[in-house]
């Protein structure tokens, strides 16, 4: 597979270069960056010239990604997570005198907090960490193969029930597959909880062609690592689920967009795709079903906003990772302007559960539990399990400590007070208490966690991850961080009440008037911390 992916830098000099597709840009930037450790001006210009793109455009795209360096840097790189979860666990930001060591937002390894990631030329240099799944296999459905199968072996995958859903789908046909997804009531696990079946039917019915299936493996919501567990330890499941989706909606091409900070996952997925091609499970005739399907892996480049579906499309297409206005919706005009089915990795894992020839197992939900618990990790619990029960599963807060708050749903989520942890972890029940399941991130704060510092950390995250397109978010996230900085350091501009009012005013505008969810939710956790925890001594 890898040799048909477009790579421009690798084109031998002297060969005629036909005008390539613009979506070759991001892979070309990665290839050059991996080779040198940074992107020199003349390298960027050469890429632009070769792709027939404006040099300013290529610079504009490259400079929108945090992964790329524009001054000399070694190929060997250590990313140190300085996000909220790892800071609470004692992470120290790297000093300016440490070459090859950079600070990073959440690395999606919160169970290892404080987390680091070592790479060389973009590839991981330490073995994959063991799967952080503390529950016994008997308690797991979506995660039943994790830590059990050899992620590099298609035979082992088959021996553990793999490929059964695809075979079942082939027997019942695309319409029945879609009907099964709709009947299951499955909702998206990427945060918005939109009914999956409606998207499958809409893409199948859409008139544009070709159609695409996109797996959103950008998992960048701070505190979230459940998708990484599936990607790393059950990669064939992702390939199979995407194939079933392509078959059901009439798409022949799938894109698997994985965040740059998951190099082990990328390697395993690329291997799985190649193995599936060799076995005839991908290609011109998928498993003898008479339909074609292939999958291209695309590597993100350090941008949280690229998890937003339309920004993800823009990123794949070779544009800056900026969200697009909806409508039109992806099912009508998504990737390359074509009908597109985009799903989170966990949503896709559920497709295999629903199409199990032995009948669908009961619905479950994955949670990434980190912070002040005895056994941080990825947990799979029946839908409707309470937050309290989940915390118990994870061993509860360490002895001698007291629960202070749970940050539910990541940076875009909200802090839940100890008095409300009996809430069932469903969309409806969490909404009723003003919280959200979101990405399923559960960051547990005990009485030693500095909530005000955590809130400031969240504000810093949003300031750094705003794409900059719209005014409420581009400037609002800055004003929010400035005010929180003053409050945390005890130097309010005017009274504390005035600062809080300033935050409210900015927050309301971000929520109401931002283009995408990043700006719309950038004030959520801050508001909750002020209103329900009185972090700045202001309860109103």
């Amino acid at each position, binding site marked *: 597979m890898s040799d048909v992916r477009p790579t421009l830098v690798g084109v031998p000099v002297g060969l005629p270069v036909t005008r390539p597709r613009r979506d070759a840009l991001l892979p070309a930037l990665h290839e050059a960056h991996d080779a040198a450790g940074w992107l020199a001006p003349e390298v960027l210009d050469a890429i632009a010239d070769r792709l027939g*793109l404006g*040099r*300013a455009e290529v610079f504009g795209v490259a400079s929108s990604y945090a992964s790329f360096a524009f001054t000399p840097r070694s190929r060997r790189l250590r990313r140190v997570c300085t996000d909220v979860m790892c800071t609470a666990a004692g992470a120290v930001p790297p000093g300016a005198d440490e070459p090859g060591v950079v600070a990073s937002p959440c690395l999606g390894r919160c169970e290892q907090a404080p987390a680091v990631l070592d790479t060389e030329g973009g590839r991981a240099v330490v073995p994959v960490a063991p799967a952080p799944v503390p529950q016994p296999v008997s308690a797991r459905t979506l995660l039943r193969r994790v830590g059990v199968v050899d992620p590099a072996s298609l035979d082992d995958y088959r021996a553990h029930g793999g490929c059964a859903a695809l075979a079942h789908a082939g027997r019942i046909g695309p319409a029945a597959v879609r009907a099964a997804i709709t009947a299951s009531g499955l909702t998206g696990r990427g945060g918005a909880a939109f009914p999956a079946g409606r998207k499958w039917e809409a893409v199948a019915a859409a008139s544009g062609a070709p159609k695409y299936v996109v797996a959103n493996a950008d998992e960048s919501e701070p505190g979230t690592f459940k998708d990484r567990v599936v990607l790393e330890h059950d990669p064939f499941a992702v390939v199979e689920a995407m194939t079933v989706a392509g078959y059901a909606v009439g798409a022949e091409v799938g894109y698997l967009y994985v965040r740059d900070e998951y190099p082990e996952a990328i390697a395993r997925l690329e291997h799985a795709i190649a193995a599936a091609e060799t076995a005839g499970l991908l290609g011109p005739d998928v498993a003898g079903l008479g339909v074609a399907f292939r999958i291209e892996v695309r590597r993100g480049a350090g941008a949280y906003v690229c998890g937003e579906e339309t920004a993800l499309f823009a990123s794949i297409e070779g544009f800056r990772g900026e969200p697009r206005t909806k409508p*039109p919706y992806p099912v009508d005009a998504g990737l390359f302007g074509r009908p597109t089915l985009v799903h989170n990795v966990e949503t896709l894992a559920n497709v295999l559960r629903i199409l199990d020839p032995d009948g669908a197992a009961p619905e479950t939900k994955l949670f990434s539990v980190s912070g002040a618990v005895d056994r941080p990790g990825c947990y799979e619990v029946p839908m409707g399990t309470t937050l309290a029960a989940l915390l118990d599963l994870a061993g509860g807060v360490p002895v001698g400590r007291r629960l202070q708050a749970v940050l539910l749903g990541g940076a875009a989520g909200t802090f839940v007070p100890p008095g409300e942890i009996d809430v069932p972890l469903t969309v409806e029940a969490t909404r009723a208490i003003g919280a959200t399941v979101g990405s399923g991130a559960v960051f547990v704060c005990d009485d030693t966690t500095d909530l005000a510092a955590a809130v400031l950390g969240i504000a810093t995250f949003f300031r750094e991850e705003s794409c900059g*397109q719209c005014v409420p978010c581009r400037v609002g996230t800055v004003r929010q961080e*400035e005010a929180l900085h003053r409050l945390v350091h005890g130097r309010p501009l005017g009274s504390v009440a005035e600062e809080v009012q300033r935050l409210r005013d900015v927050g309301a505008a971000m929520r*109401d008037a931002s283009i995408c969810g990043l700006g719309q939710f950038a004030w959520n956790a801050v508001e909750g911390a002020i209103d329900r925890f009185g972090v700045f001594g202001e309860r109103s």
Partner: protein
Amino acid sequence: MTDGAGNPAPAPGATVTVTVDGRTVEVPDGATVLDACTAAGVDTPTLCFGDTITARNVCRICVVDVAGSRALVPSCSRRAEPGMEIGTDTPRVRHARRMVLELLASSVDLSLTDHVEEWSIRYGADPDRFGPDAATVAQPVKVDNDCFVRDYSRCILCYQCTDACGEQWQHTFAIAIAGRGFGATVSTEHDVTLPDSACVYCGNCIEVCPTDALMFRTEFDLRTMGAWAPERQTRTDTICAFCGVGCTLTLHVQRGATDDEGDRIVKVTSPHGSSVTGGNLCIKGRFGAGHVHS
């Protein structure tokens, strides 16, 4: 059939009926919510919206309340749909517009941007409330060629110049948005000077800039000398004589302060409604005339 934004092509002759602040208005199919507001006699502030560039809806000052929509809706780009109930003066709308003004004016020099004062009064915007240490985009003016200057301290990132230079008109792609978040700017590759970039000095970016961040060198020099005098300026339309295309030029002529000083062309624009130019020119029309005098 869809347009660039994926909307279905409007049905010719068909109309759409909506309400704006309770008043019923009928607009042609394909009209925007902004058009509907205008038809209802409501003045809507706009900043990033220009009449020659496809709306990017990034400034968010034109937002309105649409019944059934959780977030506010950018009126400049959303199509009017049958039965839409549009609120243009609700507390949420007023607040969002006030905050867009406060956020922009506290970070960008809007002193040459039209209507800002009037709107700031209308919406009660007080940009100073973020204090003297609020981050801004202030930076030195880029004066690197004889044709025009770039003062990105005035830039609201409306994306119009990059769209005019790129896909929508000029196809030169000399400038693009670079960086991200609050650090995003309009830039050439690696921030090289315009003479080192692909720029062909068509000046079509100046034409669309709503904030005067992009300014004719003549205007910039006159302003620097304190000699910029709009009250002595007149506009005359003429047809460019450089080639056979027949572009309409609008010559902006400033009369001399004294009889000795003489008149000079201080800038050249083209009517946005012109079917030949759509507001766009080339270096000869835009700057050639000026050079005759300088």
